[in-house]
């Protein structure tokens, strides 16, 4: 394909799947007015990854098994979400302050743990640090297959529950009066978001993943005015960003894939903001003219 080596193809495919799932999960977070949750979620994976590495080495493993690291990341993310809920319940702080507290303290803990690992005699945790900003070239086929699988499962779950999720995001109270258990639906949204963050660790990294969640969703909202079409367009924008970003990063040595993917998404958003049929700059300027 395009004269690319096998590894780049694998990475591009995985990044496309991750981008598509991120577009969908990001749309849900945005419509549920929880866009920044992805940021806290991403940063909260770091201590989970570090602890997973430590546990793996302690049990005689290499510390780099993709499944172990992803599981650690997921548990870290979920612990972050749980802390967020706890802080909101116990302390009188605003939502954005609670988010900053969780994001900062989890990322701080993760950074401290990484430093400890690196200074320990058995530690050569260079591979872990790449998860912070993403390093797609270091992806092995296992990483790609897992990322793609996780993304597929997320898309299937959201597709099956799209009607319920639109109800939840539009009018939670009304959903409850229909007898819906909105807490279960909210848990689905958060689980999907967590899975996407974990799937995107290798390619995009945990700092920039929030951008891949939110930018495709924002672009899609400009282009379409309905729920399922918005999720679909966001998935396409996310997938395109994944492919374009990977190819651009492969074209020059040491160009980080995560940054390229997010910049590709931003470029697509820019195009949507200018050219979108009703909400774009061109359409609005034309509409304003007599």
């Amino acid at each position: 394909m395009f004269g690319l080596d096998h590894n780049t193809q694998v990475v591009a495919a995985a990044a496309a799947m991750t981008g598509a799932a991120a577009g969908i999960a990001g749309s849900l977070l945005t419509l549920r007015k929880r866009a920044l949750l992805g940021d806290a979620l991403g940063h909260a994976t770091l201590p989970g990854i570090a602890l997973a590495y430590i546990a793996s080495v302690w049990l005689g493993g290499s510390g780099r098994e993709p499944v172990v690291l992803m599981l650690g990341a997921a548990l870290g993310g979920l612990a972050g979400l749980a802390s967020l809920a706890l802080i909101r319940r116990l302390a009188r702080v605003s939502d954005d302050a609670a988010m900053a507290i969780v994001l900062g303290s989890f990322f701080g803990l993760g950074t401290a743990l990484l430093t400890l690992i690196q200074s320990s005699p058995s530690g050569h945790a260079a591979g872990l640090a790449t998860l912070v900003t993403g390093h797609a070239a270091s992806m092995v086929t296992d990483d790609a297959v897992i990322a793609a699988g996780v993304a597929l499962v997320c898309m299937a779950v959201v597709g099956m529950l799209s009607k319920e999720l639109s109800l939840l995001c539009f009018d939670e109270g009304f959903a409850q009066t229909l007898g819906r258990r909105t807490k279960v639906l909210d848990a689905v949204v958060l689980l999907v978001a967590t899975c996407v963050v974990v799937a995107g660790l290798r390619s995009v990294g945990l700092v920039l993943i929030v951008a891949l969640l939110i930018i495709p969703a924002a672009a899609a909202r400009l282009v379409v005015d309905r729920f399922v079409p918005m999720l679909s367009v966001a998935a396409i924008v996310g997938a395109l960003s994944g492919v374009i970003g990977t190819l651009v990063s492969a074209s020059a040595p040491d160009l980080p894939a995560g940054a390229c993917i997010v910049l590709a998404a931003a470029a697509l958003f820019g195009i949507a903001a200018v050219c979108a049929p009703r909400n774009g700059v061109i359409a609005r300027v034309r509409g304003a003219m007599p």
Partner: protein
Amino acid sequence: MKGHSPTSPLSIHALTVAYQRKRVLWDVDLDIPAGAIIGIIGPNGAGKSTLLKACLGLVTAASGQVSVFGKPLSDDPTRVGYVPQRESVDWDFPVTVLDVVLMGTYGRLGWLRRPGRRERDAAHAALETLGMSAFSHRQIGQLSGGQQQRVFLARALAQDASLYLMDEPFASVDAATEQAILTVLRRLRDEGRTAVVVHHDLESAREYFDWVVLLNTRVIAAGPAQEVLTHDRLRETYGGRLALLDEAAQRLQGAQGG
């Protein structure tokens, strides 16, 4: 527990709700009559919206019971339709008018079934009733406030419920919408259904409602509109807000005379 009528569409017993220790509703006892349009009237902060939300389980009651046709609401949520305040949702949300009205049919559909022909027909009929058919494919943000309110009413109609709880449907709507809502309310009553409507305007209350609940944290009075909307009862409900009260009372007296 006091004996409450199992046939009452909405029976509330000793309901108390508090937000952070502040009492919002206190010891509310009500048996709402069937086949009537009922107004819930009281000053700002009287707990009118909270009463609806507590009946629907959207806020947790400190104590008390609510039964719908003699049973807890959770036994069969499809018997109750809810029209929330218009401001409670984001009208920029990516849905069309028809999408929102279809949500009224989701209660009977369950989690996985999609709306089919029957649900679509019900949604279109509801839009027709409210004169909103021409707008069915518009994104909801492109509607006026009154039209948005009519979409919420249409969604409730598509629910095909026996009891409706509506939160300020008449708040800041145009005259055409006001008439459309009134027509819907009267049609629901003629079909033997019951509508409980939170309302803030004393002037129109006598015209709109068959039955009125005067509420200010506790129930001041409940009964046929003519008997309940009296000067003394209103004074008791609105308390110290004398200027407002006297003005309203004068208008009421004027309405009685005319």
